[in-house]
C-alpha cells in the first residue's frame, strides 16, 4: 500500500471510530433525555409512569388555581375538557400567558398519589398558537 493510501485509510478508520463513539454517546444521552407526552386521560388511567420525568398537558380548569398564603407554591387542575383531569403542584413563577381555560404543558414527575409535581410550566406563546401536543386533545377520544 502506498503511504498516501495508508494515511488515508488510517484517517478513515480514526474518523469512523469517532463517529461511532459519538453516535453511541448520543443515543445514550437521547435515551435519558427524551420526555414522553401524556394527555390527562392517560394520567388518570394510570398509563403514565410514576416518578419518571414526563411532559403532560391540558387546559387549566377554571377556578382550580389555589395559591399558598406564603411563598410561590401553587396548585391547579389540567383537564382535557372531556372528563379527565389531574392536579399539578408547582413552586415557582407561572409564565405570563398562563391563564384559566388556556392550554398549558407541564414537565415534571407524577407522584404515587396522582399529584403531578411540575418543575416547569409552559404556556402558549401567543393567542394563535396552541402547543401541538394540545391540538391532539381535541381529537383523542
Amino acid at each position, binding site marked *: 500500500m502506498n503511504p498516501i493510501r495508508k494515511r488515508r485509510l488510517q484517517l478513515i478508520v480514526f474518523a469512523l471510530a469517532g463517529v461511532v463513539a459519538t453516535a453511541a454517546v*448520543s443515543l445514550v*444521552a437521547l435515551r435519558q433525555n*427524551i420526555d414522553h407526552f401524556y394527555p390527562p386521560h392517560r394520567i388518570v388511567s394510570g398509563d403514565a409512569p410514576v416518578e419518571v420525568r414526563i*411532559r403532560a398537558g391540558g387546559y387549566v380548569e377554571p377556578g382550580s388555581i389555589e395559591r399558598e398564603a406564603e411563598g*410561590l407554591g401553587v396548585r391547579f387542575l389540567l383537564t382535557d375538557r372531556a372528563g379527565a383531569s389531574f392536579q399539578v403542584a*408547582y413552586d415557582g*413563577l407561572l409564565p405570563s400567558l398562563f391563564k384559566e381555560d388556556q392550554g398549558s*404543558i407541564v414537565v415534571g414527575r407524577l407522584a404515587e398519589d396522582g399529584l403531578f409535581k411540575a418543575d416547569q410550566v409552559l404556556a402558549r*406563546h401567543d393567542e394563535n398558537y396552541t402547543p*401541538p401536543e394540545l391540538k391532539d386533545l381535541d381529537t383523542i377520544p
Partner: protein
Amino acid sequence: MAALGLWGGHRSQPALLHAVSGLAQLQLALLLGAFALLAAAFLQDDFSVLYIAENSNSSLPWYYKISAIWGAHEGSFLLWTLVMSAWTSAVAWAGGRLASDTGNYVLGTMGLINAHFLLYLLLASNPFLRLVPNVPVDGADLNPVLQDFGQIVHPPMLYVGWLGFSVAFSLAVAALLTRRLDDDWANLVRPWCYLAWASLTVGIALGSWCAYHELGWGGWWFWDPVENASFMPWLAGTALMHSLAVVRKRNGFHHWAALLCLVTFSLCLAGAFLVRSGVLTCVHAIASDPTRGVMLLAILCLVAGGSQVINAVRYRDMKPPLGFELLARETLLLINNLLLMTALGTVFVGTMFPLVYEALSGGGRLSVGPPYFNRVFLPIMCVLVGFLALAPILRWRSTPASLAVAAWKPLVMAAAAGVAIPLLVAGWITFAAVAAYSLAGWVIWTHVADLARRRRSAVTIGSITMIAGHLGFAVAVLALASAGPYSHVSQVRMAVGDSAELNGRRYTLAAVEDTQGPNYLATRGRFEVEGRFIEAEKRLYTPRDVVTTEGGIGHGLFRDLYVSMGEPFDDGSWGVQLQEKPLIRWIWAGAMIVAIAGILAAFTSGRLPRAPSFAGESGRQQSKSGGRAATARGHATSGPV
C-alpha cells in the same frame, strides 16, 4: 398590487440563460417596489390588506409597523425573496470575473431558486390579499413578543445569512456542471461564503440576545428547533469556510467543499421548512400551516435532491488524494470539518428525533430536552476548541514536531488559570467549566503569541482576520462557560419594601407603579440593588390582550443583574425572579468580533498576495456559537413559551 403581475412575467427568468444580469437587477427593483408598497401600506394603516390587519395596529409605533412586515409568515417570505433577489443582483453586479458559462449557471441557478420562492409566495402566502368589503376598523396588532429592537434587525440578518449561502450553492452547482472545481473556484466562493456566514453569525447572536432581552426571563438559548434550524447551517457553513482554505492553499478537498456548499444551503432551506411548516413542537411556532409546509418541502427536496444528483453524476472527476503529514494544518482542518459535521449530526438527530418518533409510533409525542444537547454537543465543541489552539502553530504540509510540542507549556498555564481564577472569584469549580476555560485560554495564548511573533515578520490581513476570528470565538467560549454554570437564580415573593438576597447582593422592591405605553398598559417594579435602580415591567398589550414580561437588566461589564416580575398575589405582593449572569454580554461581543473578522476576510481576500506555505486566512473561525448552547440549562425553566 400591480407588482404581482410583474413578478409573474418575471418568472421566466431562469429560462434565459444569457443576459440574465439585467433581469436580476430588474427582479430586485420590482421586489423592492413590492416591498416598498407593503411598507407604505403598513405605515398608512391600510387594514383592507389582510396581512396588515392581522399584524399591525394604528397605535403601533412606526418602527414596529415597518418591522411588522416581517413579523409573520407572508411578509417575512416577501423579505426572503427580496433578500434572495438582492444576493442574485449582487452576484450579477460583482460577477465580472466569472467566466460566461459559470456566470450563467450561477445566475440561472439562483434565478431558478427564487422563481420557486416567488411561485410559493404567490400561491401560498401572498401578503397583499385584501379584506374587502369588510375592512376592519383597526388591526389585531403585531405579536407583542416581536415588538423589540432586536426583532427589527434579527430576521433580516438571518435571511441575509441563509440566502447568502445560495451563492455558494449556485457556484458549486456551476462548478460541477462546468467541471471547473479548482482553487479558482474556491477563490470565487470564498468572499460570498464569508459574507453569508458573517451575517448568519450576527443573525444567530441577535436572536439569542433578543431572547435574553425580550422574552423577559433571561434565557438566551433554548435548543429550540427554530434555533437549531439557524444553527445547523451555521455549523455546516463554518466547516465549509475551513475546507475552502484547503482548496485554495493546497488544491485539495474540492468535492468535500462543493458538497458542503450544497449541504449548507439545503440546511438553510430545511430550516425554513422546519420553522414555517409548524411540524415541530416549539417555542417559536409563530406561523404554522401544513399546506405551506408541503410546498416548502417540495422546494427543499428539489434543491437538495437535485443538487445531490448533479454531485453524484459529476463525482467521477476525482483529483488525486492530497499528500500531507500528520502534523500539518490540513490535518487540523480535516479534524475541524469532522468535528463540526459530527456536531451538526448530533444537533440534527436531537431536532428531528421527535418528528421521526411521531411518524413511526403513530402520533406519540415526545421532546428532546436541552440536557441532551448539552451532554453531546458541548464535549465535541470542547475538543474542537482544543484543536483550535493549534491553528496558528501548525503549517501547511508539515510542521516541525518541536513547534507543536512547545504548545504544551501554554496549555498547562491556561489550565492552571482555568482552575485558579474561578476558584478565587466564585469559590467552586466544575469539570466542564474548567475544561472550557483552560482550552479557550490556550486558544487565546497561542493566537496572541502568534500575533506577537508575526509583528517581527510579516503580518497579513489574512492572518489578522484568522486570529481575530478565533479570539472572538474563544471570548465567547469563556463567556459561555461563565454565564452557564456560574449564574445565580432565585424566585421569591416580594411586597413593596421587602428585600431578598442573591449571591451576596441585596435586592429591595422600592416601588410598584402603573404606567402606559403607546399600545400597552404596564405595571413597573423598581428594584434597588447596591444603590442603583433596575426597572422590570409587566405589560398588557391592549389590542391583543396579551401579557408580557419585560425583564429589568442591570447591565455590567462583568455581570448582568436580571429581574423579572411574575404575577401579583392577592395580598399585593409579587412573584419575582432574580438572576445574576456573569460575563453574559461577552457571548454576543465574541460573536460580533467573529462576524467582523469574517466580513473583513470577505473583502480582503482578492487583494492579498498568496503566501502558500504559511499565513493565509486558513483556519478561521469556528466562532462562538459552539458552546453558547452550553448553558441554556438552568434558567428559563418556568419562563417563556
